[in-house]
């Protein structure tokens, strides 16, 4: 039984392993030396990763990137109360919506030149770019969630004695929470992509800096390690939020689907 389960798990990885093996083979036996420098085999990448871990360099970059993402998320979470106010009060929505509709389609990356002039190279500039990536998905989802709260739930609360404030805190906020979490998930994903772009050009540390710096010394194995780390962290962040949200909101169909 144990072995069957093991093989079933293994089967899912079969294609991936074949690809890795083909890559290893190509890099070692088909490509010439110069080309192999540009595409090191998986084993080479793994060695590079070990090297970076031993020297502790990768942890430093990882920590810097994650802390930027974290601080930017803290600033961007202001989108939640703003979204609730915009969803609840029509006149606020009327005033703020045009501004947001104009700013939203500008990709965070387009802000990089201006932000470097404003903040210089470093944490503030990076956080600003990430902030832009996180802010809008959270805001749009929050507004949408608040507007789509089942009207009968609000009526039910009203006829059980809840006032306007009670309706917002006890009903609107709770009912909107699953979609707000979805906004946070999307936001953190977009922010993470924006982060790497920001670090490529405007930072002295972080995973984006690591891969760009490795390029200048032709350490393609480091570049691949950095890229892999970016991907894995992005995946972990997403899973972490989803898992936490499922634990906290077992009633939500959207989250548990």
């Amino acid at each position: 039984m144990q072995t069957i389960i093991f093989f079933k798990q293994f089967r899912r990885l079969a294609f991936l392993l074949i690809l890795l093996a083909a890559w290893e083979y190509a890099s070692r036996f088909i490509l010439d030396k110069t080309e192999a420098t540009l595409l090191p085999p998986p084993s080479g990448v793994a060695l590079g990763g070990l090297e970076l871990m031993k020297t502790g360099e990768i942890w430093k970059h990882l920590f810097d990137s994650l802390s930027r993402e974290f601080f930017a998320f803290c600033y961007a979470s202001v989108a939640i109360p703003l979204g609730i106010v915009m969803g609840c009060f029509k006149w606020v929505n009327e005033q703020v919506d045009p501004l947001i509709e104009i700013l939203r389609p500008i990709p965070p990356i387009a802000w990089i030149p201006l932000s470097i002039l404003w903040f210089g190279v470093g944490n503030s500039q990076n956080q600003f770019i990430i902030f832009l990536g996180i802010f809008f998905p959270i805001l749009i989802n929050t507004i949408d969630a608040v507007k789509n709260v089942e009207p009968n739930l609000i009526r039910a609360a009203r006829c059980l004695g809840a006032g306007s404030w009670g309706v917002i805190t006890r009903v609107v906020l709770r009912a909107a929470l699953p979609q707000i979490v979805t906004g946070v998930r999307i936001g953190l994903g977009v922010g993470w992509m924006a982060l790497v772009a920001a670090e490529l050009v405007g930072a002295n540390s972080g995973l984006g800096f690591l891969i760009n710096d490795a390029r200048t010394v032709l350490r393609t194995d480091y570049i691949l390690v950095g890229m892999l780390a970016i991907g894995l962290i992005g995946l972990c962040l997403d899973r972490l939020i989803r898992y936490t949200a499922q634990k906290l909101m077992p009633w939500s169909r959207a989250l548990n689907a």
Partner: protein
Amino acid sequence: MLALKVENIKKIYPSMQSKGQDVLAIKDVSLEVRKNEFCSILGHSGCGKTTLLNLIAGFEVPTSGKIECAGKEISGPGADRAMVFQDYALFPWLTVFDNIAFGLKIKGFSTLDINKTVTRYAALVGLSQFITHYPHQLSGGMRQRVSIARALVVDPTVLLMDEPFAALDAQNRAMMQAEMIRILSEESKTVVLVTHSIEEAINLSDVIVVMTRRPGQVKEIIRVPEPRRMVEDTPAYLAIRRQIRDLIAGEHEVSEVV
């Protein structure tokens, strides 16, 4: 003593389009419901019976006329007129216990009182075993029991019910009607129920208000001879059912002529 008094209510919905016609939903509706009386409002769909209930609940404001609950004119929704909805409208993020406790928490009851009261009402509707469940884990009939307990727990002057059993299948509907009779025998309440089922109205009511087609008006008010003890297929039962059916069928023809 009057629990509810509706006086010359008129409700006009302004048209959505700039040139469209305003819609007169109900007019000249007056009715009185005594304390501990069960009043059903019966009529075709679209006759304004739900509008009337929403006006009583305070979700909507009448164009003219006034509504008094226990002698006080109403202004907006309140816990003295708790409502049971057709789609249950339970809070999906709260357990059965917390759903029932909702109104008590808003009133600021102590934890001890909340525990005691919720436990009592959960038992009254037969859900003691399920208080830690979430609504999505319950069947339709059980959800409606939660909804009834949630409304009863705030001790409303008038309990409003908007086609509460319409979403249930026939067996469940009959069972919930019997349950409703049992609950009311243990816990006297003034109830206003909106329904389109003649049988449901006869089985549950003291008074049946039959409404006309739109614009909704009171066509006739009928007292049930033996409230909640009517036996199906007895001559008395058949007579009252016949009477109501004729009233409603008459409405049908009128509207077709128009």
